[in-house]
């Protein structure tokens, strides 16, 4: 693999960049692999990468129905934070955030992790108490956050209206080392490294069946023929229940559309990421200058990657109240993605009823930020056949035991 650097770009410029090699190979599938990962999104590719890097398992294929990174990895609002409330969540998201810190160097691919700071503004007393609780929890979890005053909120984000007529800002939970990254680059960077390790990323290949013998998976049927494997890992957000059905088990997952939109690009006006849960909206400015806006999920299940327009309206309305200058900007593009929702809004990284098959799903509306941690924990689970400490709490068994990891807590209810 040719290393990327400013020097390399300068060198290749001499030949008008005609000397660059492929970022990842486009191989024909082999007959068999040690591990097959279904789904070449961020989580699937990261799983493959850490299987190679941490566990020396490089005989791996990542099979993708469409194009790599084309699901939610390429559709999210790129926010990275780890200020979660529950211990298992904070552990895996903080692991992910920490891996993001030097992922560009690790992958030799600039994924543009930018720890510009994430604030979750509190606009009711109830939210203030909720975020104070999170700050206390984070301090014990080794996640650096603090509860800040409205004045500090305004200082960090001058375009916010803290004395709005409806919901004045009462403070915020601030994670200075949270931020954003370039979502596509995360998938591409992992793919390039996986390919370099000799793994096969097989795009445009749909898994149509799961081959089993005596309760053990022996391989998959695909649109390009059967491929055998010793271990199977299903990482297909948005289609998890369908793949599970193929494998013969059920998942406690509902699939709903989540939407986002961007404005036209403008000169920099906002350095931080702001999330406002009372009014259901979040906002950041991309390096291109677009204001990136995340909205809510539909109340019904579907697979269309489109959503109901009223969510866009509600989100925009809320954000233009919180950031009045947004009103004079224009919506450039809106889109949707299908997210897996579990009953407790926490992910599943788990063994399955099939001994050598593992599943990673249920990241809901917040999977992007978890990619490196998720891949790291999943690789450990697949390699050892049992979960390590990061994945342990996220087993399927928690639903039968009632051991939920509920992160909707801060949302709570008003009284």
């Amino acid at each position, binding site marked *: 693999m040719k290393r990327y650097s400013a020097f390399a770009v300068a060198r290749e410029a001499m030949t008008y960049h005609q000397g660059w090699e492929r970022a990842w190979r486009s191989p024909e599938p082999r007959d068999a692999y040690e591990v097959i990962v279904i789904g070449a999104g961020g989580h699937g590719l990261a799983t493959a990468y850490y299987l190679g890097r941490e566990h020396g398992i490089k005989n791996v294929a990542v099979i993708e129905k469409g194009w790599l990174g084309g699901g939610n990895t390429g559709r999210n609002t790129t926010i990275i934070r780890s200020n979660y409330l529950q211990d298992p969540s904070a552990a895996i998201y903080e692991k992910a955030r920490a891996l993001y810190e030097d992922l560009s160097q690790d992958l030799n691919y600039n994924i543009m992790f930018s720890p510009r700071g994430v604030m979750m503004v509190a606009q009711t007393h109830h939210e203030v108490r909720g975020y104070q609780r999170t700050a206390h*929890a984070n301090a014990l979890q080794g996640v650096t956050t603090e509860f800040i005053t409205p004045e500090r909120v305004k200082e960090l984000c001058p375009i916010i209206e803290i004395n709005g007529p409806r919901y004045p800002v009462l403070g915020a939970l601030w994670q200075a080392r949270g931020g954003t990254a370039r979502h596509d680059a995360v998938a*591409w960077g992992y793919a390039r490294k996986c390919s370099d390790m000799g793994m096969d990323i097989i795009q445009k290949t749909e898994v149509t069946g799961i081959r089993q013998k005596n309760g053990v998976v022996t391989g998959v049927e695909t649109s390009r023929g059967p491929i055998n494997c010793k271990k199977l890992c299903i990482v297909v957000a948005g289609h998890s229940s369908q793949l599970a059905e193929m494998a013969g088990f059920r998942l406690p997952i509902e699939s709903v559309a989540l939407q986002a939109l961007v404005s036209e690009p403008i000169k920099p006006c906002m350095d931080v990421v702001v999330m406002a849960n009372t009014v259901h909206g979040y906002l950041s400015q991309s390096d291109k200058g677009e204001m990136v806006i995340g909205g809510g999920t539909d109340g019904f299940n579907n697979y269309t990657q489109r959503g109901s327009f009223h969510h866009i309206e509600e989100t925009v309305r809320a954000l233009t109240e919180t950031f*009045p200058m947004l009103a004079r900007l224009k919506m450039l593009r809106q889109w949707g993605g299908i997210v897996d929702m579990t009953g407790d809004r926490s992910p599943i990284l788990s063994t399955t009823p099939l001994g050598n098959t593992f599943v990673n799903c249920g990241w809901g509306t917040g999977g992007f930020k978890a990619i490196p941690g998720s891949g790291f924990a999943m690789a450990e689970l697949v390699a050892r056949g049992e979960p390590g400490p990061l994945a342990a709490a996220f087993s399927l068994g928690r639903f039968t035991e009632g051991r939920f990891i509920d992160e909707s807590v801060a949302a709570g209810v008003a009284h």
Partner: protein
Amino acid sequence: MSTRLTRAGRLIDPTRPLEFRFNGKRLRGFAGDTLASALLANDQMLVGRSFKYHRPRGIVASGAEEPNALVNMGAEGRFEPNQRATTTELFDGLSATSQNHWPSLEYDIGAINTHLARFLPAGFYYKMFIHPRPFWKHVYEPFIRQSAGLGRAPKARDADRYEHFYAHVDLLIIGGGVAGLQAALTAGRAGRRVLVIEQTPHWGGRAPVDGGEIDGQPTEAWIGDALAALSEMANVTLRNRTMGAGIYDHGYALGYERVSDHAPDGGDAPRHRLWRIRARHILSATGAIERPLSFAGNDLPGVMLAAAMRDYLVDYGVSPGDRTVVVTNNDDAYRTAIALKEAGLEVPVIADARDHATGPLAERARGMGIRVETGMGIAAVKGGKRVTGVALCAQAGEGAAREYVACDAVAMSGGWSPVVHFWSHCGGKLTWDRAGAMFRPDADHPPTGQDGLPMVTAAGAANGAMMLDACMADAVAQARLATIAAGGKARKTAPPEVECAAEQAIEPVWIMPQGAPIEARSKMWLDFQNDVKVSDVQLAAREGYESVEHTKRYTTLGMATDQGKLSNINGLAVLSDALNAEIPATGTTTFRPPYTPISLASLGGEAHGELFQPIRKTPIHDWGDANGADWEPVGLWRRAYAYPRDGETVEQAVAREVTNTRENLGLLDASTLGKIIVQGPDAGRFLDMLYTNMMSTLKPGRCRYGLMCSENGFLIDDGVVARIDDQTFLCHTTTGGAERIHGHMEEWLQTEWWDWKVYTANVTEQFAQIAVVGPNARKLLEKLGGMDVSPEALPFMAWADGQIGGFDIRAYRISFSGELSYEIAVPASQGRAFWDALMTAGQEFGVMAYGTEALHIMRAEKGFIMIGDETDGTVIPQDLGLDWAISRKKDDYLGKRAQVRSFMANPERWKLVGLETLDGSVLPDGIYAVGQGRNANGQANVIGRVTSTYHSPTLNKGIAMGLIQRGPERMGEVVEFARTDGGRIPARIVSPVFLDPEGERQNV
């Protein structure tokens, strides 16, 4: 130079001159101009700078597809960046400035990037700026951010007004060109309710510029007749300046009307109007967009789309250049050459990439003395901020210049692409039309509605029928189908007689010349705004970004504010060629709404400021406003947190309110608490399933405190249920829970127990409810007189209807404070009068209003839980010592099965206790109790947390409630709480009931 011709344009009113400013320069235009045509008329071809390389940019198009001519407009509350000059109607006093340059449009430091372009290919930032790590955030990224972006960020609050319209129609027609008008005639005559929306101020689309005849008259006359006929039809609505913005599932469409952008001082009209349209069927008659050609230097100001140049000439009487070279691969561009020549302008040569040009248009051009060179293309455009000439070459070669032709403008045409956005927004598929070299709607794979039938029909040029005769024939045929789909009847009719020039077939040309070397390919622009060149797309293909989505994202092709209207098809053709694949195999990127960017303010409509989530007000709200209420938002309500008096802090007020209520008399506006009527023969059975308690055994006239759990066993709400009569219950919910719990009830009734005879009604706003609390509560009611409120007549947990002080009331003997308490409901209309009566009569008993914080403190002193404080979605009733409220006699209730799961019954669960610091201080909110050591993930082990914490004015010390591992077994133990700064606070585990454990104060 570009200039205004003496011959007036079709859309210009030469009698109405207008003044405007561009970059401070005072310029003149006419009514009917767009900002773009007016700029061209003033020889202002250079209008902006590109995104990445800061290259000089000129106007290239004449409509919504324009990628370059974006300007800042307005000031302060009306300042707005990124306004498209080609779709901005000129008005007197318009002031615009160009974007993305420093210090000026003419001399831009950022243009150094154009010299570094060779080092800044597609995706360069993924390969650079990797080391050293901190430099990305602190050095590289800030620099990139500064040079990116386009217009300036607005600062002020928007000064304009926006509104929403709602329309329900049988047929929505998007596009008011000849095809759209023809379809409107068909559907209108069939009696359908039709809405026709057109994005420009004018009807008829391109047809009047392109010439031809319909039904024996010039197109313009036919358009006039069609409009006259349509305006006679009451069932047809015509709206110009209204763009189709997007199509959503189930026949939902958005229209975006620019009501007063063209006349910003037009009184109190809204600026934009968002049309939310439900249509039985939608017809897309959105025309087509011309494609540029990819030759070296095709981005220089002065290079324009051929049809756009014709528009400026015919519609606005503006010539973009004196000497224009035309370059094409199809016949349509000849119309531009002919129009230029007819206007007395020079056309030194038409370079036609095809080997033959023998159609009538080519012959006519030749006949006018225009030199036509076939098999020729442009090797390079010369010039800096304006075209000065072109080098011609053989299209089949590698670009060896045959001839240099001086010129100041280039008109290019690479063919036309139907506007398929509205076909595609909801999943309609496209097919590659090889003969037309275009993607057009695939009639076999239309977007479908909820009934599985096609939801959208495409007609005319939008359906790939480009020539006027084919366009009208297709419009007639599709209009019939659309009319039937919209529920009407329509017979097959013959298309109108159309006269138009026949056209010779297009020859696809994606790179000019065919064998251009890399040096030339890295100067061929695909995306003018984002600076994506042919070489960039080829680089993406070389590096394995083979999916069209990968290429788009890697190169930013089509991601600019024009969303690739000019660049996408050319880009994917180049990609297909690089991959050695067929164009249809490569496919397109997804078409997403909106068609062109729409203002965020219009999405909000009127709902901003006071009208954004309007505040719900109880009948007593105004009294609170007049008496200094310190409001807090609770759901959509505002509740008084406290009522500070002169000179008091909020904390002092809260303490006074608690003390006064405990010692004398307090009034609480409890109107926001949810009140849901549940009625029917199965009401008791239903509530037995909903609550953990047994409700069916409750006697009329009595109240019972109930708990509601989710299916997963977790507490979701609590409240007092009163049985009104045999078949009627009134369920109180938390303030925030009213709508949610009502929805929860309905969900179960509608999906699971649909055969149970139960109705529910949310009557929260029908009643005002006032808590009369304190030792003097009964005295006050007795003074006002009426019903018997003695302990015998109205014991604790009973309710009764009656009169107090002449008001019809319902009194509930319930208490959330531990004091003698009556919650009294009156019809909402009587709420304020009753409150005033209580206040006046209560003076002698020391009455004071109290707010939510006093309420919270008093309930905490009594150890009563609060949903949302003690519960957070992970807590079951058993955790809170509420086992007594769980009926053991019932077979089932929601959550019962979940609560027997192993972890729910685990003795290690955190359970409710009271907490007191050793020094009487108040524990911080949300603080955790720490145990020994760390868990496998290195996190400190925790054994509990504080759920509610207050200073108790009654006990004059800090009190708290919390959940502690095995808490109730550990009474008297001291546990340590961890401050965020690492310090520890010891606190003792005590009973959560801090005051009056025997209930002597309330049961009097």
